[in-house]
């Protein structure tokens, strides 16, 4: 049987997490299908149909799917489920919200946040904020899985041309209604997809001081993140949070500024290739995971860093 991937998108663009999830699906079985649920999202389905290794794309294009309400999406996926051995989605707030609802309706367990595929029924996933890795075997006939996207490369769009099948369904479960959203707009790359991330913690002292990080982020084409402490203090919005309950990132370079390095934060960034820590407290736990550390006052170090970057860029 084939593997089905739920595509995460915003009706305009596909989220990179979808391409990582397709890669994970291909490690389970050669036959991978995808489903696009949304409104006016035929462009998304077209792009997915050109993805390497996708055999068939289903599209359900209707206003009731526009905002990815779990109560509306779960029934349509459950209806398709009989043809699939595995159903996958990224472990983003999109996948985390919807997949357990699907699993329960199918009366099967969910395997959350897989980091690797050992076989079609065995996976490795983090537990205890990533302080232990669990190798787990699912005994259910169907596997509902969310994927830790940083552990899988993104599948490429290579000009394939798989079949697109329309699903005509428009049953509104009538349980939840979209009221509004407040999305943070930024020209910088998405945190989970950026090659370089620079994050600030409580040591930044204010939201205004994050401009010091933004200046460097713009020079490095980096995303800006934060620790829970910085978000709780109101310095930056919630979607900046990197950690156990926020976003998980694994960029080429992660720069932690004024972040002490609580285990909950380390859970979200310790798989980064190179970690740099800037902190005035030389005992801060962040230095234990850092490849390079500077002990000192971030308000002196950051402007200097910005100036030095100009030198190598010129």
């Amino acid at each position, binding site marked *: 049987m084939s593997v089905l991937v739920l595509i995460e998108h915003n009706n305009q663009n596909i989220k990179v997490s979808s391409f990582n999830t397709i890669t994970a699906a291909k490690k389970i079985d050669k036959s991978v299908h995808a489903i696009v649920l949304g409104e006016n999202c035929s462009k998304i389905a077209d792009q997915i149909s050109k993805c390497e290794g996708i055999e068939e794309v289903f599209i359900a294009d209707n206003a009731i799917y526009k905002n990815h*309400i*779990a*109560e509306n999406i779960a029934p349509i996926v459950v209806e398709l489920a009989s043809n699939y051995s595995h159903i996958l989605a990224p472990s*983003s*707030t999109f996948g*985390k*919200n919807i*997949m*357990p*609802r699907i*699993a*329960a309706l199918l*009366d099967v*367990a*969910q*395997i*959350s946040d897989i980091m690797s595929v050992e076989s079609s029924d*065995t996976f490795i996933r*983090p*537990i*205890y904020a990533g*302080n*232990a*890795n*669990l190798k*787990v*075997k*699912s*005994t259910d006939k169907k596997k509902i899985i969310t994927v830790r996207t940083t552990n899988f490369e993104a599948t490429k769009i290579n000009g394939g041309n798989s079949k697109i099948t329309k699903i005509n369904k428009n049953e509104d479960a009538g349980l939840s*209604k979209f*009221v*509004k*959203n*407040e999305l*943070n707009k930024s020209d910088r790359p998405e945190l*989970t997809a950026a090659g*370089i991330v620079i994050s600030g913690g409580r040591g930044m002292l204010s939201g205004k001081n994050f401009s010091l990080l933004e200046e460097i982020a713009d020079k490095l084409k980096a995303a800006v993140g934060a620790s829970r402490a910085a*978000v709780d203090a109101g310095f930056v*919005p*919630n*979607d900046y949070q990197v950690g*156990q*309950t926020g976003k998980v990132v694994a960029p080429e*370079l992660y720069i932690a500024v004024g972040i002490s390095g609580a*285990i*909950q934060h380390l859970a979200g960034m*310790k798989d980064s290739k*190179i970690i*740099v820590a800037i902190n005035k407290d030389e005992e801060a736990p962040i*230095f*234990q*995971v850092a*490849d*390079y*550390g*500077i002990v000192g006052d971030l308000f002196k170090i950051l402007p*200097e*860093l910005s100036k*030095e970057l100009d030198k*190598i860029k010129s």
Partner: protein
Amino acid sequence: MKILVPVKRVVDYNVKIKVKSDNSGVDLENVKMAMNPFDEIAVEEAVRLKEKKLCDEITAISIGSAKSEETLRTALAIGVDKGILVETEEEVQPLEVAKILKEVVKKNNPDLVLMGKQAIDDDSNQTGQMLAALLGWPQGTFASKLEINGKKINVTREIDGGLETLGMELPAIITTDLRLNEPRYASLPNIMKAKQKPVEKITPNDLNVEIKQRLKTLKVTEPPKKTPGIKVDSVQELISKLHEVEKVI
């Protein structure tokens, strides 16, 4: 309005856990345990709703060994009215937790189930959504704000791009995110009072829920250790390492 709050006994969030040497699991002997932090937020929110006279009665429920009664007593000390302990020595995975909760919901008829979005031990983030599916109720996950108006509830959710607000009608399942509130500390008199509050003890069997381990633990390992890094003395040195040695900038 009646509120049900499930609470889980987990390793305290400050504890640095150790993997057992036979790789069968995490060592929980003599480790400090506490209420799952997200469940504490759920308890706090329920108590605040009661203080605003929007709720008449709060029941907390915990599933686990006899020691989970301590976790229920913590909830009772914060302001919950009564507890239910579903006692079992077996590992109960999210789907079976949801099935137990469903049976309790059918008996107790709460209007709202307020629960943590995930437990910090297995980090599954599933139970609330599963319970909502089993009951056919709406789900407001990862909530950072609740606005209740009669039977209507608006839930502001923390999502990857920012915030989203959904509207739904009670009964509903809400799972809490970090910024919904800051839980209070229980006062000593309230801790004493909590000892007198009723805790009903039942088993999964009483609810006709069969505990199955659908997910088998094969091996638990420590993540690979990083080789210790180096401290550099200047920004110039840092830049040259990143630029010339690591080639990441």
